[in-house]
């Protein structure tokens, strides 16, 4: 979307939601563990963005970065509020998520999102050899490619991941 589009108007809010709503929602679900609360977090994020749209400066940070910063605050607020009054009496009261927990969830979510952005072939080999710890030869046989190709996909997959994280503004 046009980074200079004003958030002050409805079209601006609509465009910002279309571009980043799903990612913000994903982060909110991961960090709050509750789809209902996550929805509230996303709503509140866009409302705050709209109220303070004059503070958005594309020279300082991308719209995405700015929205995530707002959402992070909202999530911390919601997590504190929820910890203060558990909804169900006999449910295990959720641990109060600290700002550090939320930051960890935010970074993890960005990596998850970055993994979704890289090519399917690259993601596939990273999942097999890294997360599932499978031998390269086995993965190569399964995919019907030489072992060298699996190695090279690991290499290009990591490069692409690194690039995607950089684009998202995630510090290395």
């Amino acid at each position, binding site marked *: 979307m046009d980074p200079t589009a004003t958030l002050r108007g409805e079209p601006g809010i609509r465009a910002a939601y279309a571009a980043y709503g799903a990612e913000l929602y994903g982060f909110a679900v991961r960090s709050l563990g509750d789809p209902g609360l996550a929805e509230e977090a996303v709503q509140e994020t866009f409302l705050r963005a709209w109220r303070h749209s004059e503070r958005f400066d594309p020279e300082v940070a991308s719209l995405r970065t700015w929205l995530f910063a707002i959402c992070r605050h909202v999530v911390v607020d919601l997590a504190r509020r929820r910890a203060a009054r558990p909804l169900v009496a006999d449910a295990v009261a959720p641990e109060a998520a600290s700002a550090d927990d939320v930051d960890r969830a935010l970074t993890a979510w960005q990596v998850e999102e970055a993994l979704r952005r890289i090519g399917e072939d690259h993601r596939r080999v990273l999942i097999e050899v890294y997360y599932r710890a499978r031998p390269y030869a086995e993965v190569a046989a399964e995919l019907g490619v030489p072992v060298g190709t699996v190695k090279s996909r690991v290499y290009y997959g990591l490069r692409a*991941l690194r690039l995607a994280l950089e684009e998202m503004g995630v510090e290395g």
Partner: protein
Amino acid sequence: MSEGCRPFREQLGPLALGHLPDPEVASVRAHVDGCADCREELRALEEAAGALALVDPELLDEPLAPPRGLGDRIVSLVREERLLEQRRRRRRLTGLLAAAVLAGALAAVTLGIAHDPGVRVLLEPQRGGLEAIPARLVERPWGTEVRLEASGLPAGRYVVWLREPDDDRVPAGSFDAVADAGEVVLASALAIDGAVGIGVSEADGTTVLYGHLRD
């Protein structure tokens, strides 16, 4: 990347993940130690490899689409908040101006200070021989301003009121219909939100026109 790097480059991926068999590690390390390009490349790959550790792979396949309609809800929340903001601003302005002309409350009514178009409603005839007439209700700090087009009414005196949900009537004033009366401006203490309808009665209390506002 120099030609000498080529055989080692793609080994750097598995190396960054700690997957390279020992015999290969030695030769790749030997090259990397003497090659600034590959050292930098390996550092970047190791950073990406470190990031992988933060993710729970089980979650990768879990779709996380926001509920349908969330975007629309956000836009309508923004719209609502903007309306509230505008109303607050208008109230402040109207309040200030109304205070300035407090000497005659009616003066404030007739000034039509803020440009609030108000709520339009058609008053339907409740007996024969009458035509529907348009009215406009405008929210004011002191209640509701009522404007109606009286030109089409038969000559006579009329009483205007706003109806509350419990059927009580809150007066908005009276007027004499004369030829070419034009627009009549009246005032009722009832807030517009509290009115479910607006009626016009003849002097004897018979309702002759009525406009429905809400259930």
